[in-house]
């Protein structure tokens, strides 16, 4: 039977890993642990984790142009977190501070302006930036 079956591509991308060979049948086996996986470390909640690329410098020097950001949609942000927000329909990466009736989105880069929002303004928090992977050789 020919079938077009849905083949799930393995989505786990191990960005780093070394092989630990436990070939010796010996007491060493009892201590053989799993390989360290960056994916396991960084992606705590795969269903709600998305990767985005920074193309601006409003959060410099914490985030530079070309950096890779790990965004988790399921986390509720705490004050001081870096979030991916949607401001008037546009994506924006800023540091969040929420007080009782005011929402502040502040750029780390002093050349950019802070944004203030009240209840009812067109602003949405898309997710929290949990990790910044600096633009290196990858």
């Amino acid at each position, binding site marked *: 039977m020919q079938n077009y079956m849905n083949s799930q591509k393995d989505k786990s991308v191990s960005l780093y890993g070394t092989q630990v060979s436990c070939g010796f049948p010996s007491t060493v086996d009892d201590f053989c642990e799993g390989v360290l996986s960056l994916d396991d470390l960084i992606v705590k909640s795969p*269903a709600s984790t998305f990767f985005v690329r920074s193309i601006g410098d409003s959060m410099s020097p914490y985030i530079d142009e070309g950096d890779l950001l790990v965004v988790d949609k399921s986390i509720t942000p705490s004050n001081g977190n870096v979030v991916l927000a949607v401001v008037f329909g546009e994506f924006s990466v800023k540091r969040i501070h929420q007080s009782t009736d005011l929402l502040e989105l502040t750029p780390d880069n002093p050349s950019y302006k802070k944004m203030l929002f009240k209840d009812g303004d067109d602003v949405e928090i898309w997710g929290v930036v949990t990790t910044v992977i600096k633009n290196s050789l990858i």
Partner: protein
Amino acid sequence: MYYALVDCNSFFVSCERLFAPHLKKLPVVVLSNNDGCVVSRSNEAKKIGIKMSSPFFEVEKVLQQHNGVAFSSNYPLYSDLSNRVMQVLSQESCLMEVYSVDEAFLSFDRIDIDLNEWGRMLKHKVEKAVGIPVSVGVARTKTLAKLANNMAKKSLKAQGVVILDNQKFEKNARERTSIDQVWGIGKSSSQKLSLLGIKTAQDFASYSNKKLIKSLLSINGIRTQQELLGKSVFEFDEHPQLRKQIISSRTFKESLYLTKDIESPVSNFVMTACEKLRAEGQVAHTITLSLRGNPIVEKDNCFYSARTFSFLSPHCDSLAFNQAALKILNVMHKDGISVRRAMISITDTVTANQRQLSFLEESHAEGEILSGLMDKVNQRFGRGALVPLVSNEKSHWKKSLEDRVSNRFTTDWNQILKVR
């Protein structure tokens, strides 16, 4: 035992809006392969009169007038987001059945929980985690859960969650649902029923002449009635099936030896079977071609072969089935093999209004519309007035340049979202 049906609102459109939030309040549609016709619409697009399966060229203007946007299908994106939704749902301590790319049944024994609260919590969880809006319908049976889900979608007051946890609510839901919206009742079935005065789900559920129902709709009609009345009949991985198998076949007057001579009758059988399929308001997954020689003359040397082709997503597109049948034929048969009988059988059928477009295959919407039109012409001018061109060449419906496609935001490092 309770069943919850969770399904995504305007799924493909919602996937696009996740990465294009500026489109949240605008009319948005997603088009089938080759940007042929509309396969998903936002509420705003529905409001300006865009109908499902409309050819794109018909709606392009009105869309432009309202600052709307049309996207080409982006199956890798939809597939990935679907997996995420299902992953979140699977975290509930329930039995789960993924029914289609954007629908899942969850079932659980009712412990003392507030179902409304649970439903809202689940809806919120999926929306927060993945960003795709869903509707939740909860009831004692799958069929009722489907009704509830439908209501959840349509009622503003419900805010996306409808729980039918007592008989009064169940009756109310049945009264508000037209018979053709009931899971398992196909188009032709609902037409037959309306001749009996059955217009709503309640009419159907309370129809006392069971014998008549059974003769019109077979055992599934009875089962659907029972489900509507709160008795759970379709258990896990069970759905109402209408005609399970549609067969079209013939023994030839003389044996045929050349593959190209067999192509024509095979195509005819496919056309006939598909007409029956469409007349039932059904779509199907699988087509099987069987060939046989002449057992009387050839005895033990009689040729016999059968091969099956399955589509990931069910459809009623004659042309696609025809293409598959011819491909199978050319694999099974070589010139010189004597064939006296051929049979086409179409199986794994489901009612057409439940099928979802697959995220891995070409959409058949265009083909289905064409097939429907072909049926009309053939009815008027006689069978065979229009037939598909028997051809082994690759379909001319190749994937053309779909320049309205969005990025593969979640499956290609080079296409991830860029932010400032």
